[in-house]
């Protein structure tokens, strides 16, 4: 039986995240001005749909994995759950004590899913490394620098869009900062890949 290609998985995730950003920028802001409560709820929850698609892709990926891959997924998810749980309880205590405003608590809640994904990815690649696999097995998946560059381009696009919207400058600056960090990461992986290839050819 042919195993599903990692590149296909990467491409699906990239498409889903692009849809997510487009919906977040194009549909979610309409919730603020929507009159009808059901419309407000619909617009506010629209970005959740692409996230369900991401969860479905990940579930498929884990189910199609072999036993060692499932073990690394388990380690990654365990670490991510621990990180997110600690962050949630810290924000819960701070909010209950009145040290955090309700608005900043909602910002923390919105960052839980991205943080979960980030911690899961980092912990899983670390676990894979422990078993001799690379964080970026570039013979089987989209190179890390390309993945990071695509994410940076997506965030840069979102930042540019938000910059020209009234009252969204702070969000634009934050997204631009994230895009810059991802672009720097992409440059690091590109240089590392180039150096490894050069060393391999000598």
């Amino acid at each position, binding site marked *: 039986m042919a195993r599903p290609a990692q590149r296909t998985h990467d491409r699906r995730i990239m498409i889903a995240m692009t849809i997510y950003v487009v919906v977040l920028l194009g549909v979610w802001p309409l919730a603020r001005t929507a009159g009808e409560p059901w419309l407000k709820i619909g617009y506010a929850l629209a970005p959740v749909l692409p996230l369900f698609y991401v969860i479905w892709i990940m579930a498929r990926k884990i189910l199609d994995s072999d036993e060692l891959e499932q073990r690394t997924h388990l380690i990654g998810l365990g670490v991510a759950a621990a990180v997110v749980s600690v962050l949630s309880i810290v924000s819960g205590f701070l909010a209950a004590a009145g040290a955090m405003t309700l608005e900043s608590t909602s910002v923390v809640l919105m960052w839980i899913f991205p943080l979960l994904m980030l911690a899961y990815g980092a912990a899983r690649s670390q676990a894979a490394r422990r*078993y001799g696999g690379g964080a970026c097995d570039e013979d089987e998946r989209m190179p890390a620098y390309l993945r990071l560059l695509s994410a940076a381009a997506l965030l840069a696009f979102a930042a540019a869009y938000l910059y020209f919207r009234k009252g969204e400058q702070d969000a634009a600056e934050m997204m631009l900062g994230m895009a810059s960090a991802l672009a720097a990461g992409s440059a690091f992986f590109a240089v590392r890949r180039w150096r490894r290839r050069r060393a391999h050819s000598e």
Partner: protein
Amino acid sequence: MNNHVRQLREQRGWSQGDLAEHLDVSRQTVNAIETSKYDPSLPLAFKIAKLFRQTIESIFVPGKD
């Protein structure tokens, strides 16, 4: 646990990718087994033994614990 998977694979002239395809696992898993970084489950060990037409105990050797 040590094993002779690499020798058996090389005797057949297979790459890690070829063996991975026969076992329906990833190439990284084959590499982890060959380098004794990962001990396979019993079903996978049986699959390896069946593929090489050997017994499990002739392929997998207990290490010093």
